[in-house]
């Protein structure tokens, strides 16, 4: 099957399913005998992407596959379709989500240690209800607190293909540079605090 034959099928499948489909899922639409190769499907997707130029929707890749979505510029023009959708989240929720995304797996206590304040149960519940995070295990310490990680739905919602695509986390500056205050000499001051390696730069 050539790309021109595949295009209407792949387009219809993506639009009809209403959610992202992976190349593997698209392949499963076909009988073994006529199943296109992954390359053919990928080329078809590319062709469909180009066809979106100047239109109200675009074809993008997210964690769970390819999907059509409304172009951001156009979305603002049709936002009256949904008056009730929640589009804003509190800073507390976003900070908690950011910590889970960059530091997963992480416990609630560890989140609180960084933020310096308690994390409300409601925040964790909201994040779980949105299916952005899930408990992925328990830390083997007293109380066995849950370890949280983000989900594929989180990536899909924020239009990411993988955690690698998260904005880069700011670097910690070396505490060697700590300026002396009063008569306090700087030599050897507070070196170790900076020595703790930061594992989060490379998220896999």
């Amino acid at each position, binding site marked *: 099957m050539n790309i021109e034959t595949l295009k209407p099928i792949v387009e219809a499948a993506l639009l*009809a399913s209403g959610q992202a489909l992976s190349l593997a899922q698209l392949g499963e639409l076909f009988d073994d005998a006529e199943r296109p190769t992954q390359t053919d499907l990928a080329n078809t997707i590319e062709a469909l992407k180009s066809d979106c130029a100047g239109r109200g929707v675009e074809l993008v890749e997210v964690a769970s596959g390819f999907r059509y979505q409304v172009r951001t510029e156009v979305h603002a023009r049709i936002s009256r379709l949904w008056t009730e959708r929640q589009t804003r989240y509190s800073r507390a929720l*976003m900070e908690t989500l950011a910590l889970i*995304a960059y530091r997963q797996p992480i416990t609630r206590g560890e989140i609180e240690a960084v*933020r310096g304040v308690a994390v409300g149960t409601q925040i964790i519940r909201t994040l779980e209800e949105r299916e952005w995070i899930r408990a992925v295990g328990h830390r083997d310490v007293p109380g066995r607190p849950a370890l949280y990680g983000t989900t594929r739905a989180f990536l899909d*919602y*924020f239009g990411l293909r993988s955690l690698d695509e998260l904005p880069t986390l700011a670097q910690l500056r070396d*505490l060697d540079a*700590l300026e002396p205050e009063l008569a306090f*000499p700087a030599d050897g001051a507070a070196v170790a605090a900076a020595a703790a390696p930061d594992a989060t730069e490379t998220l896999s």
Partner: protein
Amino acid sequence: MSTEEASATLAEAASARQAEIPFARVRGEPFLELPRDLYIPPDALEVILDAFEGPLDLLLYLIRRQNLDILDIPIAEITRQYIGYIEMMQELRLELAAEYLVMAAILAEIKSRLLLPRPPVSEDPEADPRAELVRRLQEYERFKKAAEDLDTLPRLDRDTALVSVEVPDRKVRVVPPEVPLRELLVAFREVLDRAELYVSHQVRREPLSVRQRMTDILDALGDGGFHEFGSLFRAGEGRLGVVVAFLAMLELAKAMLVEIVQEHTLGPIYLRAPGAKEHAA
């Protein structure tokens, strides 16, 4: 920083972060008993409290407000501002999260340690009492920034939306479940256990090949006609095939599931379904 400055600072913080809430709204009598030159309406203070995500956030604000480097915090000054702020809140009996008080204590401790004479030789790498606080502030700040960055990512509902089209006459294809053989065997064992048939049947081995032949024979007889015994097995099956077919025939006869007709001794044996006369088409 004077108290006026502090007040202006806080007011600015409140209005900058919560612009939609009027800062200067005063209900009823002014609070004249407040510290001199430090009048902030209680409403506004609550707003300020809401505006910060905790003591680290407030400290960061105080530092950034003065364009200071985190690595160069004038602890004495920042502590003075922070504690002044906390005291003001307490005087107004605003509900203050305990974390704010803990931070005030930490700041006071750092300040006092900085004022103490330093031991002649310090091998302690964490000698600067500010180090831990600076580390926490940096760590918090990077995730505060990460949260802001995350918030700017184009996301569903706010910046884009999923799309879908109608599918007229959608037919759902139902795929039946897969059954492992083991599941079938377990089911049989359970039903036997329950029926307490186990013991009575253990004694003789179930002749399943005979059972299968019984099914095959009945199937063949389904047309209602007579079938010669010789047609119930294939020559290739050998003597065993003949025996199995014969046993199956006898079992079926015992269960009155077939009629057997033999017109004369040693003549051909014919089978047919019982009552075939009445029910055959």
